[in-house]
């Protein structure tokens, strides 16, 4: 029977579990930090010595932990890119700018178990020789910021933070830094700019890879809240045991955020890849199915930036057959294991682990208009294709949802989206283009019939203004 596996959220929802340090200590809190700090250098067969820090980094790499923020990149590899020879300080930033529409998992950790994040951070900072770290929390979570500040104070009072932690000679300070409502701060180089006190304009890579030229042009690690919390568990249980959770290349647990038209929306921590999309939506342990009398229409699988799935879709997935050979197998959307690789093979992504379910009562044009309005609002404005394109798409969709659609709008939207993706400094370009590309391609009939109906009603193919409109000189007048 598919069920939750609670590792990070093990205690979070237990009655009487509180976010203070006494409660955390009663539940074995900061034992992993003690373990990490007490690690002795290990002699290798070739005579080399592996420091405690190197051992932890090695463990995280071996655990297979992949970033929980959106990109799903190996955490151990990310750490391995850090320039440790520059002589500059190394910074670590916890990305708590949770703002991908559909996602509400980091909020649970921060609000219910903030010390777990602090412990994961201290261990990660120790492993990477970081002396100063920040938690960048989104501005709309003032209560979370207060809880984290309190947790930091408590941890400092107990010497889990500050100078000479637990007598180890290792010192670390963590400060909470609040964002102010800009989604782009979740992009790591935008976040760094914001932490430097600037507009959150993402930096171009190369040369500004955070591992080399990050905060204050120093090597910097940016990790998601859940990723850092997972590090604590990797140290506690060992990489081998951690990697037994989940499935190969998709190890550990993941907190999924389920929202939209299901009976039982909420957050569910599962072993990665052990639960299918269908189980997440329909099983009583998870979403509990659609509301009565409703049918599934569409699924956004990994936050609003990910490409939408249409009910009934099937995909060709590479699977190992009984003979050990890789073969393409047909897998239906509901049988798709919810993991990084399967969703990618199915043409979308698991992103931030946020599933938004839409039933047959959903007006798909309205839904895309809503998502596009978000991206038009959140584009930082640095790159022209994104700044202009996100707004054009949103305007066209606004027009379509206000009775002035055109049959040609579907292709017009595709045309704009195709000219944004791949032409911007950061992944926001893809994030605003992918929903448009996937919604319009997969539900084209709805977009076209909507536009055609408006045209028939208005008796002309002209736009809302009554004039033929072209969004730019490069586009055909439609």
């Amino acid at each position, binding site marked *: 029977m598919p069920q939750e596996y609670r590792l990070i959220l093990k205690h979070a929802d237990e009655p009487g579990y509180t976010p203070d340090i006494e409660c955390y200590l009663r539940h074995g809190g900061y034992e992993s930090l003690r373990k990490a700090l007490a690690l002795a250098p290990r002699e290798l067969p070739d005579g080399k010595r592996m420091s405690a820090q190197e051992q932890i980094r090695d463990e995280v790499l071996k655990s297979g932990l992949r970033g929980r923020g959106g990109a799903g990149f190996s955490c151990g590899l990310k750490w391995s890119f850090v320039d440790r020879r520059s002589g500059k300080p190394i910074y670590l930033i916890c990305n708590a700018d949770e703002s991908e529409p559909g996602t509400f998992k980091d*909020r649970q950790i921060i609000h219910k178990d903030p010390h777990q994040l602090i412990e994961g951070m201290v261990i990660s900072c120790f492993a990477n020789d970081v002396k100063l770290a920040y938690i960048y929390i989104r501005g*709309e979570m003032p209560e979370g910021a207060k809880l984290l500040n309190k947790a930091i104070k408590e941890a400092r009072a107990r010497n889990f933070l500050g100078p000479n932690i637990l007598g180890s000679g290792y010192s670390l300070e963590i400060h909470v830094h609040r964002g102010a*409502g800009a989604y782009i701060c979740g992009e790591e180089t935008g976040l760094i700019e914001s932490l430097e006190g*600037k507009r959150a304009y993402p930096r171009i890579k190369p040369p500004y890879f955070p591992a080399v030229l990050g905060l204050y042009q120093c090597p910097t690690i940016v990790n998601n809240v859940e990723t850092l919390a997972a590090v604590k568990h990797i140290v506690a249980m060992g990489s081998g045991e951690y990697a037994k959770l989940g499935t190969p290349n998709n190890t550990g647990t993941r907190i999924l955020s389920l929202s939209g038209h299901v009976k039982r*929306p909420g957050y569910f921590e599962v072993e990665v890849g052990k639960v299918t999309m269908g189980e997440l939506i329909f099983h009583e342990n998870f979403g509990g199915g659609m509301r009565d009398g409703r049918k599934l229409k569409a699924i956004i699988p990994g936050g609003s930036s990910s490409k939408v799935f249409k009910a009934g879709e099937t995909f060709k997935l590479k699977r190992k057959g009984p003979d050990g050979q890789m073969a393409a197998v047909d897998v239906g959307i509901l049988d798709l294991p919810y993991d990084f690789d399967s969703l990618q093979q199915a043409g979308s992504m698991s992103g931030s682990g946020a599933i938004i379910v839409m039933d047959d009562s959903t007006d798909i044009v309205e839904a895309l208009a809503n998502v596009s309005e*978000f991206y038009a609002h959140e584009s930082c404005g640095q790159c022209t294709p994104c700044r202009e394109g996100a707004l054009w798409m949103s305007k066209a969709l606004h027009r379509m949802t206000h009775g002035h659609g055109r049959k040609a709008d579907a292709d017009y939207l595709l045309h704009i989206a195709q000219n944004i993706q791949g032409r911007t400094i950061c992944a926001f370009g893809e994030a605003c283009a992918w929903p448009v590309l996937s919604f319009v391609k997969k539900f084209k009939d709805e977009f076209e019939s909507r536009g055609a109906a408006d045209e028939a009603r208005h008796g002309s193919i002209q736009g809302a203004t009554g004039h033929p409109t072209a969004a730019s000189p490069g586009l055909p007048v439609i």
Partner: protein
Amino acid sequence: MAFIVPAELEAELNELVTHYPQKRSASLMFLHAIQEHFGFISKEAAEWIASKLDLQPIHVWELVTFYPMFRQHPPGRHQLKICRTLSCALGGAYALHEHFCRKFGLDPKAHGIQTTKDGSFSVEFVECLAGCGTAPVMMCNDEFHENVSLSKADELISKCQ
């Protein structure tokens, strides 16, 4: 009108500067603290922050115009921010926004901030508040509220008054 920051607040700000190797980093936290105290960021406030952090005023002002949470005008005494994004929209956010607007005589079609004539409430749509599983969600000042039905919305208003 001279812009005067109370000594206690200034001491708090001075402490914030010590969190960062470079002063400029403190600007967002300064803006939050100043806005919390004064309700919005005036030109004078931006100039004051700039001089505190050895910056040009434009370095502070460009933040005020970039980050949606910073306001250039005083809002209502109670600020209602309703999440507008997809999961909340599917869960009734637009009806909730309209409910507030009708109650206060504001334009339900406007997405930006609107303040009642008596200055008691301001209502605005905001983007995803990361509470999608308990839609619709909103913030009343610094408090986060989930599963906000229309009757719960009325309760919220009466608690504010």
